[in-house]
Every structure is written in C-alpha cells, then in structure tokens.
C-alpha cells in the first residue's frame, strides 16, 4: 500500500532530509523521489510505502507540515491518482 507525498513551495537545503526523517519516524519507507515545477513553485513528489505506518496519513501530514512549515504538504493514498488517470 503506497501513498504520494507532495511538498510544494520554495526549495531549500535539507528539504528531502527533513521529509524523509518524518517518514522514517512514521515507519514509512521512501520508494521513490522526484521533483518538478508547479507554476513557479518547486514540487517534490515522494512515493512512499505505508503498509507498516505507525500513525495515519493525517498524522504523517501533520509531522511533515511541522518539519517544513512554509510548504504546502499533502499525503494522499495512491489510489486517487490511479483511479483518476488510468482506465
């Protein structure tokens, strides 16, 4: 079971490390990391494995938000993307 973590805002030193630390604390493995630009903003996208998560997705979102307070953080189950973009 996987989720997609997106962090959107201004790029900064240590961003990936901070988010990855939150994932580790929640017992969530990072499968893949990629980045993109959404309008003028930096967008980091992480695909994470949540099958052993020790909190819920709202809990993980809150801890990442705390770690990178100026960024827009979303943690969404991968099924929403699969259902919207695949037939």
């Amino acid at each position, binding site marked *: 079971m996987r989720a*997609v973590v*997106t962090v*959107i805002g201004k790029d900064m030193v240590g961003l990936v490390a901070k988010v990855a630390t939150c994932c580790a604390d929640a017992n969530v493995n990072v499968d*893949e990391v*990629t980045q*993109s630009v*959404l309008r003028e903003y930096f*967008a980091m*996208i992480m*695909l994470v494995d949540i099958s052993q998560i020790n909190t*819920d*997705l*709202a809990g993980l979102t809150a801890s990442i938000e705390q770690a990178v307070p100026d960024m*827009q953080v*979303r*943690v*969404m*189950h*991968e*099924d*929403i*993307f*699969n*259902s*919207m*973009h695949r037939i």
Partner: protein
Amino acid sequence: MAILNKTDILETITMIADEHLDIRTVTMGISLTDCLDGDAARSCEKIYEKITRSAQRLVPVCEQIQSKYGIPIIHKRISVTPVALAVGASGGDPLLFAKALDRAAEAVGVNFVGGFSALVQKGFSAGDRELIESIPEALAVTERVCSSVNIGSTRTGIHMDAVSLMGEAVRQAAERTADRNCIGAAKLVVFCNAVEDNPFMAGAFHGIGEPDCVINVGVSGPGAVRAAVAQAPKAADLTEVAEIIKKTAFKVTRMGQMVGAEASRELGVPFGIVDLSLAPTPQVGDSVAQLLEEIGIAQAGGCGTTAALAMLNDAVKKGGVMASSSVGGLSGAFIPVSEDAGMIAAAASGALTIEKLEAMTAVCSVGLDMIVIPGDTSAAVISALIADEAAIGMVGGKTTAVRVIPAIGKRVGETLEFGGLLGGGPVMPVSTIDPQVFIARGGRIPAPLQSLKN
C-alpha cells in the same frame, strides 16, 4: 515514478488546490417503509432510531476518506422515503415528522436531510395534501430538513391542482422565514420528472424503488473543467473543446466513483450511483457561467449560451458515463444563480434573465434554481412559472425543477444574501402578467404524445 506519472499527480493536486475540485456530497439514502406505524409519534420514534442507527458512522467514515485521499468531501447528507407516505400511513401532524428528521440529522452530524416530500404528479393520496400544506411551517421550524414535491412527469402530465398549491407553498415558505433571508424557499424544490436517487439538496429523496439503504455520491468540478478549457487555444474548434470537457469529466467522475465505492465498503451499505452534475459554488472560478464564458460567450446569458451549455452538458455525461459503473441522479450541469459567481454577475448586469435561464434548462440539469424574485410576486405567478418549467421537462422527457426565493420586502435591484454555499443574488424581474385564471382552472395538463416529435 515507476507507475504513477508526476504530471498526473500534479494535475490532481492543482485540480483540488486551485480549481476547487471536491466531492460535493456523500448522501445516504434510507428507506422509511419499515418505520411506519399506525401512530404518528411511534412512527417518528422509529424513523429517528433508523436514521441514527444507519447513518451513525456516515460523517466519521467520510472524514476518514477525506483524510486518506486528500480530497475534500464538502457535505454529508441523508435522503429518506417521501414523508407523505409516512403521513398517509400514520396520520397525525406532518410537523412531527419534520422535527424527527431534523433531530436525527443533528444527532448524526449531517447538514441536510431531504425527503419531506410528496409525489403527486397524477393526484393526491392520503397524506400528500397535508404534507404540502405543512411545508412552509416545517421549513421554518427546522434547520436541516429539505422538501421537494413532484408535480408532473412525461408519462402523467402536469397536476395543476398541485402546481397551484406549490405556488402558495413557495411564497409562504419565504414569508415564514422573511427574518432569515427567506431561507425556507431555498430548501424547497418543485419537480417534474423527479429522480429517485438524486444525492443533491434540496431535491434529494429516497425513492420507493430504491434499496433499504444506499450511498449516492455527487461530484463537483466546474472549476476543473474551466481550467482545462482555458488551457486550450482560443482557436480550438468545438469538437476539441467537447473532447477536453469529456476527459476532465472522466477524471472527476472516477474520483467520485472511488470515494463512493470506498464509503459503501466502509459503511457496509450498497453503492448506489455517482451523480455527474457539475455543481458550482460561489467561489470565483468554480462557476458554470464562467465555464460558458471560457468556451467563448462574452457573458453568460448572451446568444450562444444555450448551445454552449448543451454541448457542455452532453460532454460531461459522455465523459462521466465511461468513468462510473453506475451513473444516476440528475447528472448534468447545474445553473443555480445564487450559487454561481458568474451567474450572479450576469444576472446583476442584466445579461441573464429568467427567460434565458428557462431556455437553458431545456438542455441541462435541472431547472430554475436558486433564483431570487421580487417579494411581491404573487403565488399565481410562481405557480405559472412552475407550470412553464414543468412543461419543458414533461415534453423534453427530462427532469426540471423550480427553486425560486421570493425576497419578501425586496424589489428588483436589491440583493438577498444566504451566505455559505447557497450564496446570494440580485432580485431578478419576473413577468407580472396575471395567470390567475389559468392556474385557478386546476385539473391536469394531459401527458404529451411521445411521437410526432416536432
């Protein structure tokens, strides 16, 4: 991303964050047929018990889904069997039932419960007339109860005695709540060809052909469709525009299908339908009118509006039908004036008139919706407005409805504000030519011929 495409991920996030994409409503339909008792008070107890038992987990489950997928679920609602059946079976004061529904809705935390309804397209049976006469009072003394009455259909024609009563009911519903922006009338819908699985308020009720309990989902998405159309070059031809609308509607509906299926699984209740309706909100950008303007009409209401809306409505259905195994409800573009920033602007500037809105309802869902009319509009004029709209539905073989709000004490040029998703709007002029003799005739407009279609 090995499987997921990052462009797709960012597209979804943009649709939710910037284009107001959401699940507009998860509505649980609950049958009341096993709650009917010979005694009204006992029936009300059973109704309260069944609703609070069946819908106990509705709100928490929806919140959990919202958090899991990051998609806002704006409303959680309940629809019930038309209450006129309960009034007919139990006798007693219909207000008892309205109050029981209101208490049950409050107890489970939903913002509206629909089904204070009667189906009288061919005539009145026990309980129907009593219920209709109690509607203004019921909507004044309850917070969450919504009412609808079906007064016509393609197969039965239009029941003009009921149309006459409903003109009075709409007016009185506004009068009884004049101190609260006439909100009573905003919770009352008069239908022709009402559907039994509509998840949207105020017209939702749980039809008697429906299962005991069911989950229906209404999606949103005018903002997302508009943004997709905006990305196309202005020279893109309408076939291309229709294709863009279809593709976006597909994505929006898939999300609704997924949420509905998950809610149904979590609640242990069968999944009913996804309603494809494009439902606007007063937020800028999330507007069907602005979408029509994006297609190329300088302002909604101008010539070309009906054609653009017809194309939009059809493309939304084509995209949506492909995306869901079970499409139902009203499934079309809504044009509620007070809930749509572009419609409000067009009405305020005079570009959009009731007559044009009436024409638009011939090609889209669902009718003259959330239109503020002068406070001195007579019940007979409202009845005649209802009859006109019902005639479009009856002959066109589609659902039409009237939800107009007489702004008591206000005239054309003033505005009425409801706040929240109901928005607010300018008082729009209505013809004052007297239809009293026509309405007073009563009887039925016979069902129309289904051949010789010209």
